[in-house]
């Protein structure tokens, strides 16, 4: 089993993801510059957070045209796991691998804080170890994370179970107070129809060790552990 973390100019959470995979989870992982990325040797790929190409045009728009993304598309079509975290999520959306759009937060501020998420489906490569309805503590850090899609498309996504996580309060309720950025239906994470491509705004790599969490849990590691189990099954 071998994993790749793709580095774009402006990625800045790349080393955190590599650290979690190599040192916390103990799986072989390469950090690969986007111009050199070839997908055939990897079982799964992660697009890390950051500010690829300075967020010019729209977040993720320029990186989505990198030759690396043609390789990522092949991996996605193969059914191998692809995870986009924060800016990585924005890139997957701009590349058309995930539905919808991510717009500037409704408060227009960069929001950096711990949030509570509710798992809406265990049917993805990154949530197969997380029971539906389980609450997770994971931090967010972004300015363009307001998820949007049309009513018709959202209906289709609900039918296909493509909503993966929602922002909720401590009781697990979906409400506007728990929504940090104005996302439609409090959506924090979505997947493709097959469930092997997942994008999320929160940073699971920053919540993968107890020592990093004010809640003394390590919920983020569940996404990476799910990926490994998905590949073994």
């Amino acid at each position: 089993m071998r994993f790749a973390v793709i580095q774009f100019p402006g990625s800045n959470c790349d080393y955190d993801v590599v650290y979690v995979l190599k040192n916390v989870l103990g799986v072989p992982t390469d950090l690969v510059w986007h111009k050199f990325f070839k997908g055939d040797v990897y079982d799964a790929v992660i697009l890390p957070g950051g500010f690829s190409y300075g967020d010019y045009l729209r977040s993720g728009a320029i990186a989505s045209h990198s030759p690396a993304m043609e390789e990522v598309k092949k991996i996605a079509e193969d059914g191998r796991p692809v995870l986009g975290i924060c800016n990585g999520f924005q890139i997957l959306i701009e590349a058309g691998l995930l539905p919808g759009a991510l717009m500037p937060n409704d408060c227009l501020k960069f929001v950096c804080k711990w949030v509570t998420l509710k798992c809406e489906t265990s049917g993805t490569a990154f949530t197969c170890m997380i029971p539906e309805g389980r609450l997770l503590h994971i931090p967010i850090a972004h300015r363009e994370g307001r998820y949007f899609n049309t009513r018709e498309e959202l209906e289709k996504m609900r039918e296909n179970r493509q909503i993966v996580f929602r922002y909720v309060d401590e009781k697990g309720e979906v409400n506007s107070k728990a929504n940090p950025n104005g996302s439609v239906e409090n959506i924090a994470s979505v997947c493709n129809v097959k469930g092997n491509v997942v994008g999320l705004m929160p940073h699971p790599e920053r919540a993968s060790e107890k020592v990093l969490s004010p809640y003394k849990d390590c919920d983020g590691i569940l996404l990476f552990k799910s990926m490994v189990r998905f590949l073994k099954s």
Partner: protein
Amino acid sequence: MASKMLSFKVRVEVWLKEGLVDAEGKTVEEALNDLGYRVSSSRVGKVYEFVIKAGDEEEAKRLVNEMCTRLLANPVKDKFIYEVKKIGVQ
């Protein structure tokens, strides 16, 4: 024999589609109102200007349309308009 290429000055405007909350537009509107101006319906968009080479105006327009769809605008949330003006022969 290669046909002559023409240069066109292009101006593209990208706007959020109507009906979507334009948080930036709303904030600008509030700031202008705070300064005492009675402003409403404010929207914020992006303008791009560049020069493109093409065989004729029709081709230039087709290319600009393609650029907008592929990169400059996100069709899920954006609408775009553009102008193409001939500036010379090369």
